[in-house]
């Protein structure tokens, strides 16, 4: 690893990890994304220590109080502290976003690799199903699945995961078709490697970067979908605080208490922005053609 040549490696995915980090960290936009995301994750992890109040503690005396020294971001219609709910809500949003994308990524990229490698009727079947999934708008599909399964945290994760399988199938299938014709796969077959080893050890790592970039972008989408479903009332049931349900509750008092809606929206905006910045920067860092450009 010490004698890296200055010229770019032959393919994007051939970049060894340390040069990827260097390329990523030389990008100022990536720093903003990474820092912002890190901040949000730390807030979520240390929620019990950071939250000034109990997020579920109702207090009629402080109903709809505007931001003050006691309640920095005001209180909602039950007198609950908005800041504390926002901090705890970060946990749900990140958990749902992360797990949903993880499930979609595992199922989607496995299916994509299998379809691309095996081809034939299996490929046609999988791609047909993917086209069906893609023909529904994400939110509508999530809404149908969530409504079918009922409102709970687990069902919400499953519903969002299903909406995001299709892009992962596609991003895994195309490079698999290209890779399976590459000489090192044929060389592997000539050495007696079986299909599972070829798919897992030789094809998957060569597309891992594409999949990871996609995952960071779709995690932002998952957080948005979670907020949308919670807003409609198909998300995590109350009284658990999620950003989407906070906006929903704030909606009733939109003319009297602007803080109920603005702060959760800003939280969603910042998280989605951070993930998108990170995803874009990762994509640029992995693309040797864009590497070395000043931003």
């Amino acid at each position, binding site marked *: *690893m010490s*004698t*890296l*040549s200055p010229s770019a*490696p*032959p*393919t994007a*995915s*051939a970049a*060894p990890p340390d040069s990827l980090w260097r390329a990523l960290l030389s990008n100022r936009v990536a720093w903003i994304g990474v820092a912002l995301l890190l901040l949000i994750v730390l807030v979520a992890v240390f929620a019990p220590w950071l939250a000034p109040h109990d997020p579920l503690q109702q207090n009629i005396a402080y109903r709809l109080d505007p931001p003050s020294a006691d309640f920095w971001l005001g209180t909602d219609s039950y007198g609950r502290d908005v800041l504390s709910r926002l901090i705890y809500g970060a946990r749900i949003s990140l958990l749902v976003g992360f797990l949903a994308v993880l499930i979609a990524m595992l199922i989607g990229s496995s299916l994509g690799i299998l379809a691309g490698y095996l*081809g*034939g009727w299996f490929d046609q079947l999988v791609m047909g199903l993917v086209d069906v999934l893609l023909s529904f708008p994400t939110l509508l599909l999530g809404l149908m699945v969530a409504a079918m399964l009922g409102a709970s945290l687990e069902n919400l994760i499953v519903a969002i995961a299903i909406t995001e399988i299709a892009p992962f199938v596609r991003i895994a299938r195309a490079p698999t078709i290209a890779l399976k014709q*590459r*000489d*090192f796969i*044929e*060389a*592997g*077959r*000539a*050495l*007696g*490697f*079986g299909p599972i080893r070829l798919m897992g*050890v*030789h094809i998957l*790592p*060569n597309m*891992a970067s594409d999949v990871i970039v996609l995952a960071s972008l779709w995690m932002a989408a998952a957080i948005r979908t979670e907020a949308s479903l919670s807003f409609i009332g198909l998300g995590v049931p109350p009284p658990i605080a999620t950003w989407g349900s906070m906006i929903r509750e704030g909606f009733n008092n939109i003319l009297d208490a602007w803080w109920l809606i603005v702060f959760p929206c800003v939280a969603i905006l910042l998280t989605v922005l951070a993930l998108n910045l990170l995803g874009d920067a990762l994509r640029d860092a992995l693309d040797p053609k864009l590497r070395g450009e000043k931003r």
Partner: protein
Amino acid sequence: MTQPMTQTMTQDPAVLEIRELRTEFRIRKQWHAAVRGVSLSVARNETVALVGESGSGKSVTALSILKLLPGAGARHAGGHILLAGRDLSTLSEAQMSHVRGNDIAMIFQEPMTSLNPTMTIGDQIIEAVRQHHATSYSEARRQALEALREVGIPGADNRLDDYPHQFSGGMRQRVMIAMALACKPKLLVADEATTALDVTIQAQILALLAQLQAAHGMSILFITHNLGVVAQIADRVAVMYAGEVVELADVDALFARPTHPYTQALLRAMPRVDLDTDEFRAIPGQAPTLASMPTGCAFAARCPSRQAQCEREHPVLQQVVGGVTGHMVRCPVRLEQLRMNLETSL
């Protein structure tokens, strides 16, 4: 090399024997043969070169031996492939994967793309070792290091954890050879293994193969279109044209007495130090396509000694009149000429 064929044949049983191999491809819903009745044997420690132009079926023959052709568009349409007496053409895919890499190994043309860019070369050799032998990681790593040293990678100890892009083309081909020989195969199939390398590196790789062959004892089936390489490495040569072996001879006989018009034309088209030639003559015309294979001799359309019978009757491979035993040619016209010459000289 100068030893007559008959002796090597009787002393060593064939490691690989191909009998009447026929491989077909599907083109527009019809099956067409790319390899048409190829018979060939490779004895222990022998190097047989398979020569021919692009599309002559030499690579397809190699891939057929290992059954590596794509299942959908290609099929085995007859003949037998015997590896030390065991018929590979009847083996299942699972049985075949034990043969690949273990009994028969293969190296390919493009060393730049034949290695996985995301794995260190050490891990790739270790993977090849452990595929067929239940050895511990540390033992496999020791063997991998040994293999790297043997193929002549300078500073092998420090290079085990390097990635393929840190190696030059020639060094990558050495790594490929180390992987291929990791399980000590009986037969090495080298498909245009030196074609993508420049001439000095090519000579080094050929010398390395000869040295490894002497050290471990293995047979080599060397596929190439480069007759210079053939002269350097082969014991015996099979010239292929349009999916058939048109001439089979030991290397000295082939270069001294090329008999088939195609072989003669090939030799005229190549620069030679041992002959005083000023001009290289290209072979006019093109090889027939798979879908339009003539009924008679496949070379007839381009042949300078073509006769009426050539376009009607399909020639068979026959012993060359007055040639060394085992020198076979698929051309009745030339055989007749040789017979006449022999009679007039008597």
